[in-house]
């Protein structure tokens, strides 16, 4: 039986409530929401607009003749549509969001309150400088905090996200090399790196040369040394790395790349594990982006844009992109053109960066204080190790010893059960959790990467651990169908990811 939109009105076979048909297709208070285009009536709008006056156009006969095809909806219809859809979504505000490598931490409400202050929220980027002194001072203060936390002298604020920060860092490095007439060709990237690292290096015109990992999941220092040469522009390293492990030989890496005349780029995506404990400048790092949307709790993953300021060493500082804020007496100025000794490589964005995220990140820093930020890192690492230790007897970890902010498991514990990492992740949805990151990092077979962050209470961690333990035991007990058929209790059963990738239908068309 099909509902009004031509979709099945009965729950799929095997799912909760199977066999129970409703007239609407809704399942109790779980609504089967049509697309906005399938609702409403022609000509209905949420606002009262005046008639369009009849005027001669200058479009030379190119004026649109047909319908635009927008849905005609009233305000309550629009509100209900999006609220109903949001109820089918999973969010950090609903429960544990263990998506490793993405750092889904709580977004404090104080951040939101301050970001909505009209003096920040209602600014226009082209306002006269004299009228936005507070906003510029906030940018300078945030830069000051980042500079202090990294022990690096310059901060480029404009990059719009982590990968944009990588681009900023490598373009700065390229500008510094070109300024000394040194054209280099290669960038060294560990095998376990985020995919954006090699992509950034290639985008900047470099050849990517992978560095193998050792059996304990870290960079192979000897192999790295062998790859060094006078044509190596930079090494890009993540610390802690994507296996959730601290690169213990990072200072040796820094010394070696500097001795070879190259620069040291650090991917700061995992800075949340070491903030307040380790200053990247002390490790010999020349450039590092900082994901404000990870370490400093600004919303992301659909909740807000990212923001990826880049910390730069003294050697790279002159090449930082425009614009940047300078303080002159008690006034602040956004420098838009090349001036003084600076040799900026250019601009990365039309304007100055993600102002709303700057406000939220500084709020997080100031409400935690230096001691609080240190505890953020400590709690994040403690939470991950708690999970690792609590599940060590039923799941399998690829590397021995304690981890940093992420607990990484492989799929050896599923061997012979007929359950894959994907099935296991889908079964977590039935238990009420967003799955962890899976099949990443690539260097670990069937990887399950869990990042609890400092957000979770011990009770929340215990319940999460209980659910994983139960699933691991069920898999071993031969309850295979529970996994291979999962999810059973979600609004939709398992989606056909293969068909979606092979034959994507990207455009809605009205039913004939």
């Amino acid at each position: 039986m099909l509902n009004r939109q031509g979709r099945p009105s009965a729950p799929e076979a095997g799912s909760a409530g199977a066999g129970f048909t409703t007239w609407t297709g809704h399942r109790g208070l779980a609504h089967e929401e049509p697309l906005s285009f399938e609702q409403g009536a022609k000509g209905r709008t949420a606002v009262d607009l005046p008639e369009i006056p009849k005027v001669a156009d200058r479009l030379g006969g190119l004026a649109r003749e047909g319908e635009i095809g927008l849905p005609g909806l009233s305000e309550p219809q629009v509100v209900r549509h999006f609220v109903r859809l949001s109820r089918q979504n999973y969010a950090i505000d609903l429960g544990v969001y263990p998506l490793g490598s993405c750092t889904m931490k709580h977004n404090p409400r104080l951040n939101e309150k301050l970001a909505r202050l009209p003096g920040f929220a209602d600014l226009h980027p082209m306002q006269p400088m004299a009228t936005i002194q507070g906003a510029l001072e906030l940018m300078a203060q945030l830069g000051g905090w980042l500079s202090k936390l990294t022990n690096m002298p310059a901060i480029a604020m404009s990059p719009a996200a982590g990968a944009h920060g990588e681009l900023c860092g490598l373009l700065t490095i390229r500008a510094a090399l070109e300024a000394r007439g040194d054209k280099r060709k290669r960038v060294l990237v560990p095998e376990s790196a985020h995919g954006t690292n090699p992509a950034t290096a290639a985008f900047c015109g470099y050849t990517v040369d992978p560095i193998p990992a050792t059996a304990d999941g870290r960079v192979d220092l000897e192999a790295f040394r062998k790859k060094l040469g006078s044509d190596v522009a930079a090494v890009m390293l993540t610390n802690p790395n994507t296996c959730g492990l601290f690169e213990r030989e990072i200072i040796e890496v820094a010394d070696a790349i500097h001795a070879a005349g190259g620069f040291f780029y650090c991917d700061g995506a995992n800075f949340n594990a070491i903030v307040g404990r380790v200053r990247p400048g002390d490790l010999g790092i020349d450039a590092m982006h900082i994901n404000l949307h990870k370490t400093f709790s600004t919303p992301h993953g659909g909740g807000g844009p990212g923001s990826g300021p880049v910390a730069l060493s003294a050697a790279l500082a002159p090449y930082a992109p425009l614009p940047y804020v300078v303080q002159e007496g008690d006034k602040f100025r956004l420098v838009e053109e090349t001036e003084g000794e600076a040799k900026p490589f250019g601009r990365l964005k039309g304007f100055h960066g993600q102002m709303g995220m700057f406000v939220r990140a500084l709020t997080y820093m100031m409400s935690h204080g230096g001691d609080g930020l240190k505890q953020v890192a400590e709690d994040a690492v403690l939470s991950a190790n708690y999970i690792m230790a609590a599940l060590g007897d039923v799941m399998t970890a690829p590397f021995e010893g304690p981890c940093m902010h992420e607990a990484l498991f492989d799929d050896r514990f599923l061997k012979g059960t007929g359950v894959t990492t994907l099935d296991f992740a889908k079964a977590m949805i039935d238990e009420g959790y967003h799955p962890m990151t899976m099949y990443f990092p690539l260097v670990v077979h069937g990887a399950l990467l869990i990042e609890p962050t400092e957000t979770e209470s011990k009770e929340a961690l215990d319940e999460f651990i209980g659910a994983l333990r139960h699933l691991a035991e069920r898999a071993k007990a031969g309850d295979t169908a529970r996994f291979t058929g999962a999810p059973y209790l979600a609004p939709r059963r398992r989606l056909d990811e293969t068909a979606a990738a092979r034959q994507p239908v990207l455009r809605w068309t009205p039913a004939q």
Partner: protein
Amino acid sequence: MSETKYTEDHEWIRVEGDVGTVGITDYAQGQLGDIVFVELPDVGKELDQGDEACVIDSVKAAAEVYAPVGGEIVETNDSVTDKPGVVNEDAMGEGWFFKIKIADPAELDDLMDEEAYKAFVEGLA
């Protein structure tokens, strides 16, 4: 008389005369899961042994296919770009990627025969 050789990156090459047909092994397609996209090299492209030849995307990961030996690409199998699923269905046959004119047959000596590859894969499990 053709012979098939294998690399540690799970490519196979079937040699007939001075041309080798290249694909990924059944083990590799199984590990990758459903393959959804394949990017083939251009015909006429010259590759050294170990150079990246193709990019493949599966539902799990993106992976590269490397040239088992150096040489010139003389033919590509466009049916795998149209229907990537053929790689999952028949990795060692219909799911081949390209044919390469082998520059130096001595490079084949670096590769494993079927027996050695079988042992190599068992060592990974």
